[in-house]
C-alpha cells in the first residue's frame, strides 16, 4: 500500500450501526494526496454513512480517524471542516431562502472590520467560485429558485470554497447532464493536481473509469475489494458490488408497439404567474404507444421535468394550449388526482421533497395512492393494505426489514423503489418517470430497467426523462429531445447512439442555454 504517496486520511476499523442495522463494519480506508478515490457499493452499502463519519456528521461510531497522521475525533461537521475535510452531501443540503452566496459561506461568512457580514466580498468570492465550476449564476439569487442541477453545482462550489484537503463528493452528478459533468471533471482534475484528495461516490459506472484512480467497494457495510480504478470496467465494478455477475443492463428486446396511448401536439403552457427558473412547455409534440418506452432527453433546464409535470397536472396553474390525447380522447389533467384517475402515474425527480413522507412507514408510503380504491365504505381493510404493500415490495425487491419501518431508514435506491411501487400499484396506462434511477445502484438500476421492460410488456406506455444519455439510448425505443421547452428532435435508438443524442441536445433552437465552449467565463 505504501507507495510513497502520503495518506491525507486514514480511517481504521470504522463501525457504525443504526439500531440493529450495521451500516459500517470495521472499515479501513485511506485517502491520499492527489488521488480520486472512488467509493462504490449498492444502495445501502454504507458509503454515505462512512463519509458522514469522516465529515463529522455521524459521531457515535467506533474506530479511528487519522488526519495527516494525527488521530482526530470530530464532534460536529465544523470540526471536520477545520481539519480540512469537506463533504458534498447526497441529499442537497442547502437553505432555499438564502442566496447562493449566503449558502456557500454559511457558517463562515467573511466579516468587515465592524464584524458585520462583508457582503461585497462574499459576492465577489462567490463569482470566482462559480466561474471555476463554469456556472453563470447570480450569487444573489435565492437557492430555492434554482433547478436541482443548479443547486448541485452550488453545493460543489460551496465545497470548493472550503479549500479542503479532502473533498468528499457523495453522488455529485446525479442531477447533472453531460455538459456539467464534464465541467466538474475539469474542476476535479485541477484539485487533484493541487494535491487534494477526493472521495468520489457515484452510481454512474462510466464516470468511475474516467475520473478515479482507486476504487474501494463496499458491500453490507464492509470492504469487499479494492481496485486500481483505471483498469476498472463497469462490469467488473458491478460484479464486485453486487457479488455476482450482473446480467445485461439494458434490454435488448425488440418492441412490438401497440395502439397509441398518448399523443401530445404542440403542447404549451403559459403559467398564470411566471416562476423564474422554470421552462414550461412551449411547443412539444410526441407520442407514446402501448408497450413503448419513450425517452425525453435534453440539457439541464430544457423542460423535461416541466413537461411531465404538465402532463400530470402538477405544473403551475395557467393556460394550456395544444392537444393532449389519451387513447384518442382529449384530456386536460387539472391535478394529480385527476391524472391518476385517467391512468397516468408520475414518479417525481426528487423523492425526498416530492415523493415520500420520510417518517412514515414503507407501508403507508406504498399504498397511499390506492387506499381509496381498496377501501370499502371508506374503511381500509388492513389485510388488503399489507398484502398489496408486501407484494410490491417483493416484486421490486425493496430491501426492508419490515413494511412497518420508516421509509427514511431505507437507502436511496430503495426509497426510489417505494415511490415507483406506489405508482405501479395504481395500475397505470402510462408511466411518467422523471430521473427514476437518480442515485440508484447498478443492480437496482438493472432491476428497474427490467421492471420497465415488464411494465411495457404488459402494455403500459412509459415516458422517461433522464439526464443520462446511456440510459436513454439503452432503455428507450425512441427519444424525444427537448430544448428550451420545445421538442426539437426525435431519435430512434435502434439507429442513433449517445453521441447523436448529445449533439441533438446541444443543437439548435436553444434559448435558455448558451453553450460556451471557451472555458469558464
Amino acid at each position: 500500500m505504501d507507495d510513497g504517496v502520503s495518506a491525507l486520511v486514514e480511517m481504521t476499523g470504522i463501525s457504525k450501526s443504526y439500531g440493529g442495522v450495521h451500516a459500517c463494519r470495521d472499515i479501513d480506508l485511506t485517502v491520499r494526496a492527489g488521488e480520486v478515490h472512488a467509493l462504490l457499493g449498492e444502495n445501502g452499502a454504507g458509503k454515505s454513512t462512512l463519509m458522514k463519519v469522516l465529515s463529522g456528521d455521524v459521531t457515535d461510531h467506533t474506530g479511528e480517524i487519522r488526519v495527516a497522521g494525527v488521530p482526530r475525533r470530530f464532534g460536529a461537521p465544523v470540526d471536520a471542516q477545520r481539519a480540512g475535510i469537506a463533504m458534498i452531501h447526497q441529499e442537497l443540503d442547502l437553505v432555499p431562502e438564502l442566496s447562493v452566496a449566503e449558502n456557500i459561506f454559511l457558517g463562515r461568512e467573511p466579516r468587515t472590520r465592524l464584524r458585520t457580514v462583508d457582503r461585497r466580498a462574499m459576492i465577489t468570492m462567490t463569482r470566482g467560485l462559480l466561474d471555476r465550476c463554469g456556472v453563470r449564476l447570480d450569487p444573489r439569487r435565492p437557492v430555492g429558485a434554482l433547478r436541482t442541477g443548479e443547486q448541485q453545482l452550488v453545493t460543489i462550489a460551496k465545497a470548493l470554497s472550503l479549500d479542503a484537503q479532502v473533498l468528499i463528493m457523495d453522488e455529485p452528478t446525479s442531477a447533472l447532464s453531460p455538459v456539467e459533468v464534464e465541467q466538474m471533471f475539469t474542476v476535479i482534475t485541477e484539485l487533484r493536481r493541487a494535491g487534494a484528495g477526493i472521495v468520489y461516490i457515484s452510481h454512474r459506472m462510466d464516470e468511475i473509469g474516467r475520473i478515479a484512480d482507486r476504487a474501494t467497494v463496499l458491500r453490507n457495510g464492509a470492504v469487499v475489494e479494492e481496485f486500481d480504478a483505471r483498469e476498472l470496467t463497469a462490469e467488473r465494478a458491478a460484479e464486485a458490488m453486487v457479488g455476482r455477475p450482473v446480467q445485461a443492463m439494458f434490454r435488448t428486446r425488440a418492441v412490438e408497439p401497440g395502439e397509441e396511448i398518448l399523443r401530445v401536439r404542440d403542447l404549451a403552457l403559459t403559467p398564470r404567474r411566471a416562476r423564474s427558473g422554470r421552462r414550461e412547455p412551449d411547443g412539444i409534440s410526441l407520442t407514446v404507444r402501448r408497450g413503448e418506452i419513450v425517452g425525453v432527453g435534453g440539457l439541464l433546464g430544457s423542460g423535461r421535468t416541466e413537461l411531465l409535470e404538465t402532463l400530470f397536472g402538477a405544473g403551475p396553474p395557467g393556460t394550456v394550449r395544444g392537444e393532449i390525447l389519451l387513447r384518442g380522447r382529449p384530456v386536460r389533467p387539472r391535478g394529480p388526482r385527476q391524472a391518476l384517475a385517467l391512468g397516468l402515474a408520475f414518479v417525481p425527480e426528487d423523492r425526498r421533497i416530492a415523493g415520500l413522507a420520510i417518517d412514515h412507514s414503507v407501508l403507508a408510503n406504498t399504498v397511499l395512492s390506492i387506499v381509496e380504491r381498496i377501501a370499502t365504505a371508506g374503511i381500509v381493510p388492513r389485510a388488503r393494505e399489507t398484502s398489496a404493500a408486501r407484494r410490491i415490495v417483493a416484486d421490486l425487491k425493496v430491501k426492508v426489514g419490515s413494511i412497518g419501518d420508516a421509509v427514511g431508514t431505507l437507502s436511496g435506491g430503495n426509497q426510489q423503489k417505494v415511490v415507483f411501487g406506489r405508482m405501479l400499484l395504481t395500475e397505470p396506462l402510462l408511466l411518467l418517470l422523471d430521473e427514476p434511477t437518480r442515485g440508484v445502484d447498478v443492480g437496482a438500476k438493472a432491476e428497474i430497467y427490467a421492471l420497465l421492460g415488464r411494465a411495457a410488456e404488459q402494455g403500459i406506455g412509459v415516458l422517461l426523462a433522464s439526464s443520462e444519455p446511456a440510459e436513454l439510448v439503452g432503455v428507450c425505443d425512441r427519444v424525444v429531445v427537448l430544448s428550451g421547452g420545445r421538442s426539437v428532435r426525435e431519435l430512434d435508438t435502434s439507429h442513433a447512439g449517445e453521441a447523436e443524442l448529445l449533439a441533438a441536445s446541444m443543437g439548435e433552437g436553444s434559448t435558455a442555454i448558451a453553450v460556451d465552449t471557451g472555458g469558464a467565463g
Partner: protein
Amino acid sequence: MTRTVPHRGSGGRVVAALFRFQSLFGLVAVFVVAVVFSPRHDGALLFLDGDNLFNVVRAVSEIGIMAVGMTFVILVGGIDLSVGAVLGLAAVGSAVLMVDSDFGVFAAVAVVLLIGLGFGFLQGLASAVFGIQAFIVTLAGMQIARGLARIWSGGQGVAIAYGDGPGEAPLAFSLLGERTFNGLVPIPALIFAVVAVVAIVFLRTSAFSRHMYAIGGNEQAARLSGVPVTRVKVAVFCICGFLAALAGIVHAGQLNQGSPNDGFGYELDAIAAVVIGGTSLMGGRGSVTGTVAGALLLGVLNNFLGLHGVDPNIQLLVKGLVIVVAAGLQRLRPAG
C-alpha cells in the same frame, strides 16, 4: 445482495412495545402520584372516589372533545386557535335558539353543529385554498367567532330555563347536565368517550385518515400521490369546528346557560392535551389515544391540585412544569 434487516433483540422489542404506549406514560405517572398523595377522608382515598373520578372526566370532557378535533387539524400540519371561541358561539347559539327562537332540541343542536362546521369550513378554505397560515386564519377566526357570539347574545349570558312554555328550553336538553348508569357516569363524559372511540377507530381504519397523515408527513408528496389535499384539509377544519360546536352544546347543557365568553382560552388547553399526547405540531405523527391521555392528564392534575387546595399561583407553576415534562417524555422514543 445487501440485506438491511433491522435486527432487534427481544429486549428491544419489549422496549418498542412499551413505547407504543408512550403517550400514556405521563398520564400514568400523574395518576399514580394523585393516588399516592390523595387526601383521605375516613381512611378512604378521596381521589379514587368513584364520583371524583367521574368528575375528572366530566371536567375535561369539553376540552377533550375539542382536542380530538384539534388532533385532526394538527395531524395535517395545521392548528385551530378558534375552538374556544366557537365553543362560546355554539353555547350562545344553543341557548338563544331554544330560549328565544323556540327551536326544539334537535333543531337547535343541528343548527349549532352546522354553524360550527361552517365556521370550520370557511377557515379551512382560507387556509387550504388561499394558503394563509392556519395559525393566523384561526387567530382571526377566534376574534370573529367571539364577536358573533357577543352580538348574537346581546353581550350577556343567555340563561336556559326548562319547560314547555315560550322562552323555555325542552327538558331533554338538560340531560347534558345529568348522569346516567345509576347516576354515575356524567353524560358529557359519555359523549367524550363516544367521540374519542369513533375518532380512534376512524383514524385507524379509514382511507381519509391515511390521507391526513400523508399530508402532514409530506404535503407535496401527498398531492402527487393523488391525495385530494385541499379537500382533506378543509374537511379536517370542518370536523374540528363541528366538534368545537359539540363541546359548546355540552357546555351550555351543563351550565344551563350560553355565554359569549364561554370557552375563553380553551384552545390552549386543547392544544396542550394534543401535544402532551405525543402528536407533533409539524403534522403527520400522532394519535387520538394520546390526545385522550393528554386531556385526562390535565384533568387529573387540576383535580389533584384542587383536592389539595394548592395555592392557585403555585398551581400555575406546577401545571407549567408538568406540561413541559410530559411533552419531554414524548422525546424519549428510541430513534428509528
